[in-house]
């Protein structure tokens, strides 16, 4: 297994059980430490306790959607600087624009990206700065 990602923590927040499972599995195989949450509320709680290096955040979720999670994160002292990558199945320019405004570093249109692409993008974001 690759060691370069050791100790980097990734939090996957996605309401779809299947996608969440395969994504965390892939990230684990790639050497990341992962945690996951099935809705915005749970995701926000986990983020504050787990303090991940990057959050992979789905947009359409029950209880609290991705944009609301992002908003709450940016209100927090730790959360305002955490790296966030947006996951979405819909190319909705409006949502993307709002997410970018709130400091999303990248967005992944799930149907267009392979798992390898997603991992690559996570690594790129973590290695920047």
């Amino acid at each position, binding site marked *: 297994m690759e060691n370069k990602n050791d100790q980097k923590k990734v939090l996957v927040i996605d309401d779809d059980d*299947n*996608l969440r499972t395969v994504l965390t599995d892939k990230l684990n195989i790639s050497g990341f430490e992962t945690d996951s949450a099935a809705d915005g509320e749970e995701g926000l709680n986990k983020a504050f306790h787990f303090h991940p290096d990057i959050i992979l955040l789905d947009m*359409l979720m029950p209880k609290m959607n991705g944009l609301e999670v992002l908003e709450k994160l940016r209100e927090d002292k730790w959360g305002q600087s955490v790296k966030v990558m947006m996951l979405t199945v*819909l190319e909705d320019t409006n949502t993307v624009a709002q997410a970018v405004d709130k400091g999303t570093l990248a967005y992944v249109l*799930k*149907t267009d990206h*392979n*798992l*390898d692409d997603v991992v690559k993008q996570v690594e790129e974001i973590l290695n920047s700065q």
Partner: protein
Amino acid sequence: MPKENPFIRHFIISLSVFVVLLCVVVFSFTLIQKILVDPQKYFNTDLSPVETQFVVVYISLIIISVLIAYILYLILASRTRAELIARSITKSLVISREQFEGIYEGAPVPYITLDKKACIHNPNKAALRFFGVVSEEIEDKNLFSFLAEEDKNKAEKLLQRYEANIPINREEVRMITKSGVIKWVLLSVFEMSNPESWSYPPIGLATIFDITEQKKLDEAKTEFVSLASHQLRTPATTIKWYTDMLTSGGIGQLSPKQDDYINRVHKVNEEMIDLVDTLLNISKIEIGTFSVESKATNVQELFESVLVELSEQINKKGIRVEKRYRDALLNIKNDPKLLRIVIQNLLSNAVKYTPGNGTITVTLKQSIFEKVITITDSGIGIPKQEQNRIFTKMFRAQNARNLITSQGTGLGLYMVKSIVDALGGSISFVSEENKGSSFIVKI
């Protein structure tokens, strides 16, 4: 031909008769005068000259009386006739006015006449119903002040247009009613053709066409499309990522047969994702929610990225791709996402319908007059009799359907044409069966 006025005709006839009669009277007078001077010269009678004179005068007076009576009759008749005509014209005017008012008042579409400052006069019943008011509540108020807060900027522009006498044609705006309900409408304002004849000077006629229901329906459709697309994309992504995991060997090696099977699932799933994307795009086009976002676009880069995507099929069929980029279209203002869909569809068609070892040529041309993308293939071509239907929805040419290897929905070129239209460009083609096709996109 101008319509003949019966009054004038009658007047001319009467005048002619009058003149003829007058001539007859004048002639008669002259003759009578001569007879009176020497009656014996004209009449061979036993009467004395005085008696003869009396008879002549008597007969003349009778003739003159008849003539005068006839002239009087003519004058009176023509006057009566004129009065009758005037009465009938007035009546038809009244009827026409009543009909006009009936149509104006009772029309199901709100009508409002406007003065030169766009103040409301004479709103019809439908207009009052639309705003939920009585006439006095909106009389003399500016029409454009009824545009909703969200369209205030538009209201100012529309007022300027109105004041500059530029017609407003089916402008989609939101208007606010008395109860505060916001309604979507198509607003049109046209200049009145004959303003002088009105008691106040209206110069505009506004029609308001309520499209709130259609808008709601459109929104529901858009919502449905995005929901359906979301529901279809999520399982497609699941299949994509799980097959990714299996083929990448991350969770153990597969046997060659297992690997082959998983790859087939993966490939079919990719085709399904493409189909969902196409359906989503077509729905957006048809609902009219397709938005064009112009920005700096590198067409060569778009071609390169699509060619990478299609490289597997291109290599498999041994197709030669000739690129004649000529440093054109490196930086143009366009919508790269939409243009990529156009290029992707045209190129993938070219690959699909070109037999093994064929050639595809991509030519880019840029001048101050036009920007042209041409994709030429040496493929099966489009049969002449089917060429006029090539951009219609769900249409596939017979020879394309006969290809065992080709799958298609008949949506691609329809979508391409719709997108090119939305981008303000044009698309055409030249094709000969069994020789190849050339698609020319001007942007």
